[in-house]
């Protein structure tokens, strides 16, 4: 698209034209010139923004165009504020709030939380990452469809062979959902095998073959491999979630602190 046509599509262009109209209308208001400073932080921000949009950093020419445009915007925004156009408009109000909240969050730059910080955060809010107790188990399936009246007898015979040390992978019927399950909570096991199976399996001893245990599909010989205690998991398992939560909490604190600070400058009446 050529630059002129692009300009015609720019909301800023529309804004400038409208703004120009308003400026012409309201005229010069006199007084000492107000100051606008361009610092390196601003330049850097404009460059990053440009790169994010276009994929490449601005050339020197593009950068000065960006700066000229920013100055134009800044002047118009100040004029609009001076005219009070930002008051009484909910959208503008919401945007300003959003912006101020972000500034408040940014006023205290957040360091990347270290191990000890994350551990402390996990330990002070264990309920947020609580897991239900669960088990991981291996099972050998004896299906009612294939074994009919002999299902129970066949299952007991298989149990004897498993106890004697035969390889579970070579015994029993195939099972679509797999032979190794978990670690899963009782509810998760119930959703796959039925509630009764889930209550029994979560009570079985670890490391030995037990059963037969009935499920929605038939009988199973089960060896619980591992029992997962309930409660908060080790940090290694939930690091990303804890980090996310910690950052959100710090941001909320920063917003609160900033507001408390600002409140001191206001005379609040009839406010709780």
């Amino acid at each position, binding site marked *: 698209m050529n630059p002129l046509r692009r300009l015609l*599509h720019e*909301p800023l262009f*529309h*804004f400038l*034209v*409208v*703004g120009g*109209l*308003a400026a012409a209308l309201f005229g010069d208001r006199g007084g000492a010139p107000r100051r606008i400073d361009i610092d390196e932080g601003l330049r850097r921000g404009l460059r990053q923004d440009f790169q994010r949009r276009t994929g490449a950093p601005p050339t020197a020419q593009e950068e000065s165009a960006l700066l000229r445009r920013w100055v134009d915007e800044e002047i118009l*925004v100040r004029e*609009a504020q001076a005219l009070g*156009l*930002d008051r009484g*408009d*909910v*959208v*503008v*109000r*919401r*945007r300003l709030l*959003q*912006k101020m909240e*972000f500034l408040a969050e940014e006023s205290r730059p957040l360091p990347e939380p270290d191990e000890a910080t994350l551990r402390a955060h996990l330990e002070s809010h264990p309920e947020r990452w609580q897991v239900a107790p669960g088990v*991981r188990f291996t099972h*050998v399936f004896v*299906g*009612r*469809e*294939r074994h009919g009246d002999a299902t129970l007898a066949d299952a007991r015979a298989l149990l004897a062979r498993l106890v004697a040390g035969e390889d579970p*992978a*070579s*015994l*029993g*019927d*195939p099972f*679509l*959902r*797999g032979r190794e*399950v*978990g*670690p*899963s909570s009782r509810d998760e096991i*119930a*959703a*796959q095998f*039925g*509630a009764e199976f889930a209550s029994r399996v979560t009570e079985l001893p670890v490391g030995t073959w037990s059963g037969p245990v009935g499920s*929605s*599909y*038939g009988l199973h010989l089960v060896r619980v491999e591992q029992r997962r205690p309930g409660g908060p*998991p080790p940090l*290694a*398992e*939930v690091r*990303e*979630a804890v*980090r*996310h939560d910690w*950052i959100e909490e710090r*941001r909320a604190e920063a917003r609160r602190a900033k507001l408390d600070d600002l409140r001191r400058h206001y005379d609040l009446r009839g406010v709780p």
Partner: protein
Amino acid sequence: MNQLRARGRRAGLLLALAVLAGGCATESSPPLAHGEDRREPCASRDEWRKPLFGDLHVHTTLSFDAHAFEVGVTPDQAYRFARGESVDLPPVDAAGRPTRRVRIDRPLDFVALTDHSEFLGEIENCTTPGSAAWDSETCRTYRSADDHVATSLFGIQLTQEQGKRFPDVCGADGLGCAEAASAVWQRVQEAAEAAYDRSPRCEFTSFVAYEYTAAKGASTGHRNVIFRNARVPFPTTYFEQPTPQGLWGELQATCLDAGNGCDVLAIPHNSNESNGTMFAVEYPGATTPREEREQAAFRARMEPLIEIFQHKGDSECRNGLSGIVGAADEQCEFEKWTRPGPQDCGDGTGSLGSANYGCYSRRDFLRGILLEGLKEEQRIGENPYMLGVIASTDSHNGTAGRVSEEDFGGHRGTDDDTPEKQLGTGALTAGGIAYDPGGLAGVWAEENSRDSIFDALRRRETFGTSGPRIAVRLFAGSGLDADLCARPDMLREAYAKGVPMGGRLAATDAPLRLLVSALRDAGTAERPGTPLQRIQVVKGWIDRTDGQAHQQVWDVAGDPDNGASVDENTCETRGAGADSLCAVWTDPDWDPTERAFYYARVLENPTCRWSTWTCNRLAPADRPPSCSDPSIRRTQQERAWTSPVFVEARS
């Protein structure tokens, strides 16, 4: 500019300031905490893959129609619902508060929230007091009109040849809505991020997604766009991309080719409302077979799946349409939306399907679409319709996976929020009694993570169910052993000697074998699942000599005459069925020179349709006419469908 000036200078400046302020706000929005897609590895990973159940088609209050029908469920709430928490639905009380509290009977494994991308910004503007558009004619109508009128107000634009945004809502250049939509889109991504379980527990997966809602001529051309990753491009809409080719091109340009790891696919749905348009064989702009081939391959890449079952009925098959040779399939008579006057589009197309009018095409249903794909492969050497299968709900209540027949809560807010409306004839579209509680998407995945599930969707190792959590697997290969159903190493063997559902294989002289196996839904303690009745294999092929499309269905496991039944007055089931079924089946009519597909259909024992449950709960005097209408089925057989396997003919 003229428009702005006409509104008065002060208003114009205000608007400009709002636009400008909006621009600032977008740039200063806090970044997501997870810039890149990091996650902990899952504690439980199964190399033979496990079945995961989800819903890849769910609307929340962000959709223009859901919002019009007074659904207030947010994306955060919808995700929490899918994990077991309750949400509140209309009818609303005098203060506008929803009065029905619903929850799912058991959590889902994964969910994609697919709000209509069209009008995300319009709804935000029209429902935010004080927004620049708040007092516009269109917004006032949207807020105050009857819910159906409000829905049509926007919806009608999606059926126009050149759909338009409303200048009084969006500004003359549409930027007011684009700006608002980008803030909404940010929240959509954040909600998905918050819901995704990145811990090793891997309990729940969310997908960032949206629905592209083209319906030119009121024939449904809808697609759900599902992303693999967390940071995704801004959604496109019917307004910018009025054709599916445009949608795929946009997804390629902004995601697949973006070089940042973005991955995406599209899933068409409600072909049953498309009057032959969704899968019409066409290659716009192609002038050579080679260009047609390229378009076909691109389509197959962008759309590896089809959603064949949801609230608005079944899209598997329909008897009595021209162009397919073979005996009628009685199991096609399942949750069909019927229209006045049976009309067959033949090889052409029609219109008005989304209002439940117009003709049906064989290409509106999976079976005919797959056959058309085989024909195209024969003609140009590339199959544009290599489609795997899923089902979902299309809930506009934000209630992902709430598929229970016992207490169907309706499709969308106030449109059907009472038993009377649910059992009525519906409005706008057929609706009412024709709705179904919808189905679920099943995938065979190593673990419950975005990557694992997305990979399963890509390779089509997927299945759909009409609601129950039936698990079903299909493998194909001439080298599969006949005794696999009794072999403890069945899955290892099946993967080694065959291809899983969704795959393709080359024909050999030895007849093709299928291993097909299913487990019933275990249900819950309160509501045990229903036993299985049988497994069927469906084959479609193109006759080598006359080029005709054929279909045939075989019962391969279980017993269609097992004597099980259901009492229509109490919905109690009687008689036994199977807890699991398994068969190795050899095609008795094998011809390696014919192109073919095979998929499996698993049927449960009969149960009550949702409407029977609802009618039975009403006092006899309060029951509407539909409760005794002989054309409304009282009972049904719930089911699961596998993705097909595709056989390449030997030349």
